[in-house]
């Protein structure tokens, strides 16, 4: 489907219009069982193998609330500086869609478990931005539809969908911001930074693995434009299911450029749901909000209200992790990184990776060198996040260990890294399989040195006369003969020995 959309260049759009954004983030909680039943929540399991009659919404089933999910929701609320409700209820959100087998989603409506919070972000250049949180509420995830195209369609020759309910009923917390105003041209960056901040927070809290590529964290981005910051809010669009930081940024950028063109043409922005297209970085119209969005919410009669005691809330407050900004400062001090170095690390999303690499035994400098150098280049070339690379912090520490032990030089280490990324196994396995170890075995090196000296007889005389310059040429020749696998320091020693021995 190709639709040509008129766009105003982004810079011009934000010069003439004031963008306002709002973000809804859904996080799947990492509980062992589902929100309302004991079905397991393992990722990637065989379709429909993680379901109970409750997950399938069979007639007569009753929900039983997962206490751990409530605890996680409260901890998320507290980490977002929210008030925690004294009493809140679940509600049925009624709509018909095959991935919601009960024909309603059990959610919360006017009584979210957490409300009125804020988070403090830091943009790439250190600019602080405060995002106000409207609410955080508990709900359940839906199943997964796979659309089967008409060409291959076999059911009565029509197009159809296949539904897997493994995800149906997995606990979710949805976090909704208040409108974020006053950020102007930085709206796309603020949106992406906010989602990254939440992802880091979920991990620090240990409430979710928060893996973007698995859809553990999903964002809906609302964008509207108004002629000036004094004008009332414009009509917004909601771009659904934007699932990477980069996509969040691009989706906001695109909507600003698109809406500016709509307004320039004298038309009005249609309030609607839009879909984001990863390949082109564009959005396209989905459902227009209408009658079908009348969800006829009513209190869920099968679940009693949740009334967290203040004692429980305070007890959970003591389990909160360090605020990310404080944590970053502590790590930076421990690692001895400069401010610009640390900022690059944060912006690359490498804080946790470097922390884990250091924990696995590498020095902070070496960990930074790998993640911000070779691996950052690979991630950029592949257009993926660093953490999606097929290598673990422990493997980086192992690789660095081989370098520190003198078994690999830099060049060989990079080859080993490539092998690990290509799925050839651990660094040690790649070294063995590819035969990449540094040659420091004296016998082999002496033979190579002798051959090199014999090939350049005049060099010996020069060295003997005190001119050490040509030593490099001999080392180079030995390196060449050993395909770069010689231990250069040892070669140098052998060369000097040989010359002395005359």
């Amino acid at each position, binding site marked *: 489907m190709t639709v040509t959309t008129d766009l105003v260049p982004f810079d011009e759009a934000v010069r003439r219009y004031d963008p306002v954004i709002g973000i809804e983030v859904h996080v799947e909680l990492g509980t062992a069982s589902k929100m309302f*039943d004991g079905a*397991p929540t393992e990722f990637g399991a065989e379709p*429909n*193998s993680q379901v109970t009659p409750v997950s399938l919404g069979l007639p007569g089933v009753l929900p039983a609330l997962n206490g751990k999910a409530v605890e996680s929701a409260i901890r998320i609320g507290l980490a977002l500086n929210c008030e925690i409700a004294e009493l809140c209820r679940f509600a049925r959100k009624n709509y018909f869609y095959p991935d919601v087998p009960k024909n309603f989603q059990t959610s919360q409506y006017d009584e979210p478990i957490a409300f009125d919070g804020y988070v403090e972000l830091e943009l790439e250049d250190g600019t602080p931005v405060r995002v106000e949180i409207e609410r955080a509420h508990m709900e359940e995830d839906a199943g997964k*539809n796979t659309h089967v195209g008409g060409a291959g369609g076999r059911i009565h020759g029509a197009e159809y*969908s296949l*539904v*897997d309910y493994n995800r149906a009923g997995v606990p979710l917390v949805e976090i909704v911001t208040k409108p974020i105003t006053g950020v102007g041209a930085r709206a796309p960056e603020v949106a992406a930074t906010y989602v990254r901040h939440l992802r880091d927070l979920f991990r620090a809290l240990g409430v979710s693995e928060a893996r973007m590529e698995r859809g553990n964290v999903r964002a809906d981005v609302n964008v509207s434009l108004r002629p000036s910051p004094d004008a009332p809010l414009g009509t917004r669009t909601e771009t659904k299911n934007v699932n990477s930081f980069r996509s969040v940024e691009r989706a906001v950028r695109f909507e600003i450029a698109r809406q500016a063109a709509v307004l320039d043409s004298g038309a009005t922005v249609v309030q609607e749901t839009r879909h984001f297209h990863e390949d082109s970085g564009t959005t396209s119209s989905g459902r227009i909000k209408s009658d079908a969005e*009348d969800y006829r919410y009513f*209190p869920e009669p099968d679940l009693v209200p949740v009334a967290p005691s203040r004692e429980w809330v305070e007890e959970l407050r003591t389990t909160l992790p360090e605020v990310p900004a404080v944590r970053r400062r502590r790590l930076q001090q421990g690692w001895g990184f400069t401010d610009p170095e640390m900022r690059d690390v944060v912006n690359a999303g490498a804080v946790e990776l470097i922390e884990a690499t250091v924990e696995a035994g590498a020095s902070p400098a070496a960990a930074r060198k790998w993640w911000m150098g070779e691996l950052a280049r690979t991630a950029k070339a592949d257009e993926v996040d660093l953490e999606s690379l097929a290598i673990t912090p422990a493997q980086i520490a192992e690789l660095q260990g081989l370098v520190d032990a003198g078994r690999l030089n830099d060049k060989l280490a990079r080859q080993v890294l490539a092998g690990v990324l290509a799925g050839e196994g651990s660094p040690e396995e790649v070294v063995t399989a590819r035969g990449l170890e540094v040659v420091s075995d004296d016998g082999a090196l002496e033979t190579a040195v002798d051959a090199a000296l014999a090939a350049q007889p005049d060099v010996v005389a020069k060295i003997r006369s005190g001119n050490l310059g040509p030593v490099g040429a001999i080392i180079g020749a030995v390196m060449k003969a050993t395909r770069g696998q010689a231990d250069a320091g040892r070669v140098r020693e052998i060369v000097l020995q040989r010359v002395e021995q005359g």
Partner: protein
Amino acid sequence: MSTISREEVARLAGLARIDLTETELTRLAGELDVIVESVARVQEVATADVPATSHPIPMTNVFRADVVEAPLSVAQALSGAPEAQDGRFAVPQILGEDA
């Protein structure tokens, strides 16, 4: 005075996916009217300090431990499906959905 119009019943029926005939719409509009008026009389009695009741039994915080129970087998899960394919429920195409 009628508070529930036929149009309103038709709209609700549409939202609830209930297929009603013209006769049923007219009849239900009248019946729902009686129900709504009866409820309205209760509301006259309830003063502002009476909270709305959603749950008649005064219980809160009924939690289940986060423990996994044996799920259904895939065959059991699909046993009631009118159509299934590749271990999944086959359903008619969702109108207006993007692939």
